[in-house]
């Protein structure tokens, strides 16, 4: 190792890099240095005391049917098959009219679970065992009838414009808690329905954008951060890197006093360290068989999503702020999008049910659930009637369910209601913007104060609305 021609302290001050900064002995020391540092990913103080430090978002791309999973509507059973008037949003947007629709009963059986007695269906038998941990929101509504707009709205708070994604806002607001990894990671993201925009930083500095690990369609066992492994033999790579150090040190000598050049050199040092450290974090070789089977790893149906969920836990342990785990694909009708053959929901549920339940159990047993929010849900729900009188359900942004767990949210509770059909949210409605505001609040951020001046205006994730739903907090 050659000594670099500048101090470690200096390096800390000038480094602006995508994967955090040089390791310091402890977090407290770094916080104390916060004011002196120019690192944009420096961990920042919260606006108010907050229980949650990080968030795992389990994105169910395509839209899970809430009336088949967590929103029990007996009327769908008694009225199954009847042709009735519903305000179908897609028909209304297109034609201003809404034809009659056939009520379709849930294909799965509902029962009450746990101490809380919350209703859940046997679509997700494993998740239902954890209902006492869940803070279920059954009155969600959002914007965007088609996948693209609704998915972008979920992630960026707009159906149309190019805006930073929520993870980027969180990174911007809170900085990073780790030294060798990005603060915002998305595992196996889809190229479709907004693609990179869903984890992009838009006008926020690129340092806040999400780093993709793998992508949809690539098996999770092969998912990695790009260019993390040297293709050369280890010994050659080391010698070669030593050469670079010498060359750069020599070049820098000719141009003293340039912070930016020093920062480039630091980015190489960090890259070199990451090459050593990150594969250890991304790899799951050290996990016990017990843990692996908790997530369903090793079983065909659940192996892939199980690996993603386990990786999410490992990243959280390593201090990543925002981990998104994607269950989806690159198509226009992604994963959960059962316009016909709703039975197919069963296959998707089978793939995610055990891994998600495993994640909840694992986080709890490690004490991580205390300060980690788990958010499970899709971009919208599905209609309580059959689409075009067929065998599936269309999109429903007017009413749907999702659940939160951990991170200071009330456990074993349900908030809000849809109408008797499960079509429109009516009681204690929670708009997607309200959810954004609430999640930011849970992390110690004020959605109205978390702004960025761009193009002559202060922008925020929630634009000009959004209200924190305080009732959701324990």
């Amino acid at each position, binding site marked *: 190792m050659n000594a670099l021609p500048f101090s470690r302290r200096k390096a800390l001050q000038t480094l602006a890099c*995508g994967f955090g900064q040089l390791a310091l002995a402890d977090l407290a020391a770094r916080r104390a240095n916060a004011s002196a540092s120019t690192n944009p990913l420096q961990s920042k103080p919260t606006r108010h005391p907050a229980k949650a430090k990080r968030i795992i978002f389990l994105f169910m791309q395509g839209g899970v049917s809430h009336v088949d999973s967590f929103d029990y509507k007996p009327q769908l059973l008694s009225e199954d098959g009847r042709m009735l008037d519903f*305000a179908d949003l897609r028909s209304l947007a297109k034609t201003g009219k809404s034809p009659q629709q056939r009520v379709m009963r849930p294909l799965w059986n509902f029962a009450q679970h746990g101490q809380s007695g919350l209703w859940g269906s046997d679509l997700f038998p494993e998740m239902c065992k954890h209902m006492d941990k869940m803070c279920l929101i059954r009155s969600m509504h959002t914007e965007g009838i088609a996948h693209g707009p609704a998915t972008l709205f979920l992630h960026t708070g707009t159906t149309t414009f*190019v805006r930073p994604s929520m993870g980027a806002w969180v990174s911007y607001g809170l900085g990073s808690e780790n030294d060798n990894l990005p603060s915002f990671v998305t595992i196996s993201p889809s190229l479709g329905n*907004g693609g990179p925009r869903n984890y992009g930083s838009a006008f926020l500095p690129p340092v806040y954008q999400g780093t993709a690990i793998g992508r949809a369609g690539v098996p999770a066992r092969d998912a990695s951060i790009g260019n993390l492994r040297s293709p050369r033999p280890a010994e050659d790579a080391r010698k070669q890197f030593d050469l670079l150090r010498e060359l750069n040190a020599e070049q820098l000598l000719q141009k003293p006093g340039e912070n930016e050049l020093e920062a480039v050199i630091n980015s*190489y040092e960090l890259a070199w360290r990451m090459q050593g450290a990150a594969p250890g974090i991304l790899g799951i070789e050290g996990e016990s068989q017990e843990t692996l089977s908790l997530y369903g790893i090793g079983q065909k149906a659940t192996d892939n999503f199980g690996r993603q969920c386990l990786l999410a836990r490992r990243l959280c342990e390593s201090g990543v702020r925002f981990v998104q785990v994607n269950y989806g694909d690159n198509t226009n009708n992604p994963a959960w999008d059962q316009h016909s*053959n709703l039975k197919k929901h069963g296959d998707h549920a089978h793939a995610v049910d055990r891994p998600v339940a495993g994640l909840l159990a694992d986080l709890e047993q490690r004490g991580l659930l205390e300060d980690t929010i788990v958010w499970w849900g899709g971009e919208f729900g599905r209609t309580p009637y059959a689409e075009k009188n067929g*065998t599936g359900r269309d999109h429903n942004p007017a009413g749907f369910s999702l659940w939160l767990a951990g991170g200071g949210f009330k456990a074993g509770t349900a908030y809000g209601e849809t109408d008797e059909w499960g079509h429109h949210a009516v009681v204690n409605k929670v708009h997607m913007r309200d959810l954004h505001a609430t999640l930011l609040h849970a992390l110690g951020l004020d959605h109205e104060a978390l702004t960025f001046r761009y193009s002559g*205006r202060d922008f925020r994730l929630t634009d000009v609305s959004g209200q924190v739903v305080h009732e959701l907090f324990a």
Partner: protein
Amino acid sequence: MMLRPLTLALLFAPTAAFAAEPDFDFFEKKVRPLLAERCLECHSAEKKVKGGLRLDWRDGWTKGGDSGPAITPGHPEKSLLVESIHYGNKDLQMPPKQRLAPEEIAVLEKWIQMGAPDPRSEAQALKKQEGLSIAAGREFWSYAPVQKPALPKVESHDWPRSNIDRYLLAKMEAAHKKPAPDAPLHSLVRRLYLNLVGLPPSPEQTNAFIQEATLDKSKAITSLVDTLLASPHFGETWGRHWLDVARFAESSGGGRTLLFKDAWRYRDYVIDAFNADVPFPQFVKEQLAGDLLPFESPSDRRRQLTATAFLALGPTNYEEQDKQQLRFDVIDEQIDTVGRTFLGQTLGCARCHDHKFDPVPQRDYYALAGIFASTRTLANYTDNVAHWIHIPLPEEGPREQEIKAQEEKLAALSHQIATAQAEASAASKLISEATVKPGTAVNPAELQGIVLDDSDAKVVGAWKKSVHVRSFIGLGYLTDENMGKGEKTITFTPPIPKTGLYDVRLAYTYAPGRAKNVRANILHADGETSVYVDQTEIPPIDGRFISLGKYRFEQDGAGYVLITNENTQGFVTVDALQLLEEGAASKQAPDKKNSTPAHKAATLAKQQVKELEDTLKKLTKEGPSRNTTMAVSDESTALDAEIRIRGVEKQRGEPVPRGFLQVTFRGDAPAPAFTPQSSGRRELAEWIVGPATPLTARVQVNRIWNWLFGAGLVRTVDNFGTTGELPSHPELLDYLASRFVEEGWSWKKLIREIVLSRAWQQAVLAPSKEDPENRLFAHANRRRLSAEQIRDSLLSVSGVLEKQVGGSNIAGAGDIDPNNFSAQNVEYNYVYKDLRRSVYTPAFRNKRLELFDVFDFSDINQPVGQRNQSNVAPQALYLLNHPFVLEQSKLAAEAALKSPHSDASRLQNAYHQVLGRPPSSKETQICLGFLSKSQAPPADTWSQLYQMLFASLDFRYID
């Protein structure tokens, strides 16, 4: 008109009556607490004023919000407030979170019935909007006319070489700062090549320049500058800058990304325009209104039409289901882009309200919106996934004739096909009449297998029972009456007594005027299949049934056959469904249809249709075809746009006449004249480049400065509004702006003047304490190589760069139907492997070349005059480990080893290739040490060395 005062008086009568003797008791006891608890959170001056409605004083609800008065005293049934609390109207439900209890609703209704007595007459003042008035705006520096300033006096006369130098030096002298020494020749030649043509000089080019410069430096520089400005690679490099501000991309990105298959023509248009040094006013007019300009030749017309793709290239969300909303979003994107690209203005802010900081009232936004609302950017407003407009391009003389001849041939063939189809249809009809005797209704019970009559099906929409064609099963059949397309379906759910393979047959009744492509969806044990039935054909089996294919069904499993009238033209009929288990089906279908003369004639006629169709296909494939381009056109009549209250498309306010930014109109300048026959885009372009609009020239020269110096005179290059930065050298900026206009708005001349200035040729120095951001331009800025420069340099050093100028770079893109759902797979599955200049690398919005992503390529969703700069570890990882870098290093090493020279002279060459300079003695020592110590084969060792030169600081920066 005379009635109006009277009506108003009547309207207010009840209030007046109660006001005389108001009963505020009920209000105080019941209404005030209720309002405070459930309404004022969002409707008061103290908290928020959502929808413009205040309920914290009487005039608040009298005037009402965006939707008009909230309460009609005495008339609960006419009051919007009452409508909203009843939750009857889905778009107007208050309070939004949880509806009021019935007794609370009753309180408000009673109060309004009473005449809504409200003692709250004092209003708490609302905060005044800030923002600059138009009059004040005219005085703001960027909106004020360009003044060609007098040349400043300077003390040092031997340093300045040009007027630019004098302006800069004057400020330096005022700050007691001296200009930096001239850049070393090695740095200067690399700087010139990379800035003007985007490629590093070869060792030979570097040496040639240094030799010449040693004899006559000034001549050598001038001659190199002129050579580079004349190179076709100049257009590629500077066109790329423009593509950034034009948010150029080759797909729409966002939700359902669509491939812009013709966008490359716009890219080539831009490159050509920069190479030809097209005057900027013409460049602007062509992009905004090329379709409306006169032309002298087909090539002019092609160029002008292609240029308008500028307006269509945005990140449009074609999937938006509300098409009027989509139309409005497109207009918004166009206004925002035009504002930023040409004027450095953030006009998008005025969509919802008067601009909070700049002198741009909401009216101005909608004056511009009228121009774009009168422009057609979307092909129609009905398609589920919308699409842009393809406009056919004219060709020159012989080529045009050839294409016209082909088009005529195709038209004639299509006509023949239509005739043949009519014959075939008539022949079928003969059989129909022969085989399907009137009155032969069949009892479903007499048919084999599982039979469901139409009366057993689930019916959606208005189907009519008919017995018109009298060959049916059961008591009649159903017809959609050729109406309500897309709203009607029929679903048969047959009981499956036994798992097996079944022939699924649909019965319909044949008659002229039937629909051609009736979709049937079959859900079977192995999935869902769609089959299309041509009901203009006689049903092939017994004149009653057509087979939809054989499918596996499971006993008591899910299964159905759904018939829809979606996307059909003509009558759709459904009579019955029959399922025959495999084995039974073959017995049931005696194939005697070819036996009669009528059948033979029908078969012949059909054959003829098929042959003609095949000929058409072949001719289309082999013959010349007309190119199309992405473009816009005018709507048939121009209309003014209505203000959208708070930017919400459906909340319409008053219409605003088309126009431009009022701040640019001074004194008695005439208002712009528009005609109903034209959108006004041409007038818009003329206004942008006209003398009233000083922003245009200022913004462009500042961009040129920024691209050459790495910082603008105004550093917020895309924001010349009041929230942007002030110019560091306002006189120099205006000097450049007036020079630009005087010299015919020539980019090349201005670039030449700047790079020949002594200021531009200064050496790079470390930031000084007094001026850490180098706002004095007292030395050159060290500048990062852009993503394109990195890629092109790597390919150039490795010797594989293909220098072909222009042309599409997505294989087969021309044949793609971009509206086909699979078209996006071209983007998702794209493998970047071409070796052309980076300006040609497909610019997809959802999937970009990794190198571009990592090295801060432009955000191609919005106009970008200055790219982000990040310094992140993934950049280091890319250069250390990416196969592309390894490959170029390997190729460079192989070429180096072919030369018979020593390692020392190879090293000299490598340094010149990669860094444009010789190695220092220390560097030589380090590198030769590395080479001699290596155990690996020489090709590997040299490859490693080249790679580390690519990774080194000096490669990544321009000095």
